């Protein structure tokens, strides 16, 4: 009996130790609910902010599975009277959610085609003259492709190329260690930077487009319009990143085997040529459609069309897509977008902005201050909370700061793509970290330099270039 009691006690303790943040979030929520509603805030608006707080704790701590967080957010919105069930259900699915689903599936279909070796051949033929040029090429190609196809797709394709050329580098020597880090960071920074370039580069971009359309009277920003805003930042960031990495990881690159890798992939089977050609045609078709029909069809539907074509042509089985799609993330984005809508609809975001303005009333009346605060806040939050979730929750507040100025919303979305500080901030960072070759400390140290310069670049471009558009 005593042993049984000890086993039960131990199991309960273990559950508490694993779920302590879940328990804390519930306790915090109960305390906040029992407090009087702040002046100027309706009860539904107050409750929506409590749910936001809970979601923030649960997502950053990962105390319970993401699908559970998503369902909890939905259930609480109805139970706490934020909005009726029908309204919550209708805000649960929109083009941004379809885009998250479509882009994740499209990425799986593309990666399944094994395009990395073909891509490596192209990069070597263009940039293979020197090792440093090759690394610059890896970074540029990663950025350009990631801007259209998303970072999770491109890191999956590019990482095997990077790991292949550093396969025989001795990491115990400083020069070798730096060579490994330089290669991995070149690919990682290329894909991270690239993801801000077009709406299809990341779900956060699509979420912001939807918010701008819903919450402002400005003209809807289309695919080409986004590129005009974001690509100059991307190009400047790439140049800065190249020099930051050369400075952070000085190396002779002696053991990096570009030519050896070239010889090994030259022997690879060319029987997949037609499959690769067809894959490229489908990818080209989808990107062209994003340019031409994004207003009429929506980015999500076009991404899903790509998946559909791959599946109908038998180029990727449903089992592969089903196994590799992160359904939990799709549910979570849907729930956070729904919550973001309710935060705006209930007036909670306006209330937060008013409080923010009250707090900053002693500062000079310059929109640069609120811009900087918002950009740094979204940039930092996205490094702990991931970019898309940050945009879905903080996006409405960023827009509310200057409803008639598109640059606030755009800056929030772009700054949330600066996931240079932590390894949990983006799939790219996590994938590079999972190789075991990059430590959290190194990622943060180099990332801090990159994050600061990126915020500065964003500020300068928004101040001097965006006003001309």
């Amino acid at each position: 009996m005593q042993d049984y009691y000890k086993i039960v006690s131990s199991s309960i303790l273990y559950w508490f130790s694993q779920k302590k943040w879940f328990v804390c979030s519930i306790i915090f929520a109960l305390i906040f609910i029992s407090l009087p509603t702040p002046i100027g805030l309706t009860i539904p608006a107050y409750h929506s902010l409590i749910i936001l707080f809970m979601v923030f704790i649960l997502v950053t701590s990962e105390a319970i599975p993401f699908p559970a967080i998503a369902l909890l957010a939905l259930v609480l919105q109805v139970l706490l009277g934020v909005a009726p069930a029908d309204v919550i259900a209708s805000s649960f699915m929109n083009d941004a959610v379809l885009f998250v689903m479509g882009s994740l599936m499209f990425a799986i279909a593309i990666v399944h085609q094994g395009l990395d070796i073909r891509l490596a051949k192209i990069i070597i033929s263009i940039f293979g003259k020197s090792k440093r040029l090759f690394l610059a090429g890896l970074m540029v190609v990663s950025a350009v492709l990631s801007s259209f196809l998303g970072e999770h797709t491109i890191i999956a394709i590019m990482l095997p190329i990077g790991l292949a050329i550093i396969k025989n580098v001795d990491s115990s020597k400083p020069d070798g260690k730096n060579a490994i880090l330089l290669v991995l960071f070149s690919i990682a920074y290329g894909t991270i930077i690239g993801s801000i370039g077009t709406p299809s580069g990341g779900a956060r971009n699509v979420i912001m487009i939807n918010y701008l359309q819903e919450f402002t009277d400005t003209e809807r920003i289309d695919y080409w319009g986004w590129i005009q805003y974001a690509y100059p930042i991307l190009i400047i960031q790439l140049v800065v990143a190249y020099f930051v990495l050369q400075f952070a990881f000085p190396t002779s690159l002696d053991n990096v085997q570009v030519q050896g890798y070239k010889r090994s992939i030259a022997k690879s089977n060319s029987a997949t040529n037609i499959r690769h050609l067809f894959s490229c045609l489908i990818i080209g078709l989808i990107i062209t459609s994003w340019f031409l029909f994004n207003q009429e069809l929506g980015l999500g539907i076009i991404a899903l069309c790509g998946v559909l074509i791959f599946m109908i042509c038998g180029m990727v089985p449903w089992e592969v897509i089903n196994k590799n799609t992160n359904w939990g993330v799709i549910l979570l984005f849907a729930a956070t977008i729904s919550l973001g809508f309710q935060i705006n609809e209930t007036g909670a975001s306006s209330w937060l902005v008013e409080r923010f303005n009250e707090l900053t009333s002693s500062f000079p009346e310059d929109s640069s201050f609120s811009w900087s605060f918002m950009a740094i806040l979204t940039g930092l939050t996205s490094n702990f909370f991931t970019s898309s979730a940050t945009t879905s929750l903080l996006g409405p507040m960023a827009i509310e700061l200057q409803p008639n100025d598109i640059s606030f919303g755009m800056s929030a979305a772009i700054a949330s793509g600066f996931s240079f500080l932590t390894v949990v901030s983006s799939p790219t960072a996590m994938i590079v970290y999972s190789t075991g070759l990059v430590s959290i400390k190194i990622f943060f140290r180099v990332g801090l330099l990159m994050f600061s310069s990126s915020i500065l670049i964003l500020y300068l471009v928004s101040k001097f270039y965006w006003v001309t558009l």
Partner: protein
Amino acid sequence: MNILIAIGGRKYSKPTLDLGMKVSNSFEASTTIAYVGKKISQFSEKDVSIVHQNLDERQLYRPGVRTLEWAYDFLKSKEYIEEEKVATFNDNLLIDEEQSRMRVLLKGKHSNKINLILRTGEIIEQLRSEVQDNDHDITIIGGGNNKGMHHDLVQFIDSSVLVVKNYSVKKQYKILLPVNNSKGSNKAIEIAEQFAKANKLSVEIVTVLENKSSDDRLKKILERTEEKFSNAGIKNTATILEGNVVKRIVENAGDDSIIMLGVSPKNPIIKYFFGSKPVSIAAQCKCPVLVAK
């Protein structure tokens, strides 16, 4: 008997593997060597999984497999395992067994039952799950200075736990065996006897008298244990210490000691919040400590 050896980076895992295999060979146990990879955020777990599948297809070892390969080669070089048929690690296969657990299928026959396991996630959670699913009797893990981890290991892992701290492969060790009237202490005596016999180590049996009420009982246990070891032909000494248990054992343990003691019989909830003597000893000593359950 099943033994689990958890390894991390190559730099710190040699002593853990060496002592772990000595324990394993003492019991002729089936041994699982596990590498627990970095915890992957739920946001990126599928993306990471796709990349790892890609790395497998390109024959670029996924993270952790190289560490297991190094562990395998280390065990061969130290003759802890003998292959009847020469097979290199490259010939082996990686089998996805369940969520976050992969096994390296070793070809050829081996004199020992060796399993090489790759897991990803939070270390305590993964080791707990490995122990529960595969009924491991002893979990062996490298030391380090993470006192919180020692506490969690002893608290949440349902097996005896050996924390390998400051162990040198070349040094001659003795066993320091604090005994008392708990079930865990009986288990520690069993393990110490088998390990000392197999490795020809001397044993220093001690009991610490904190209050007079239990003095006679502890003295009897000490005598019984001394007799047991003498009958088994194990060189031993028996000492009675007085004072604070943790302080006296820590003072008595040298760099060349391997402490083997029983888990505290206290309620798990009290242990969680207020700690326990074995956990304090494991945290304060600068030598390997086995907490038997």
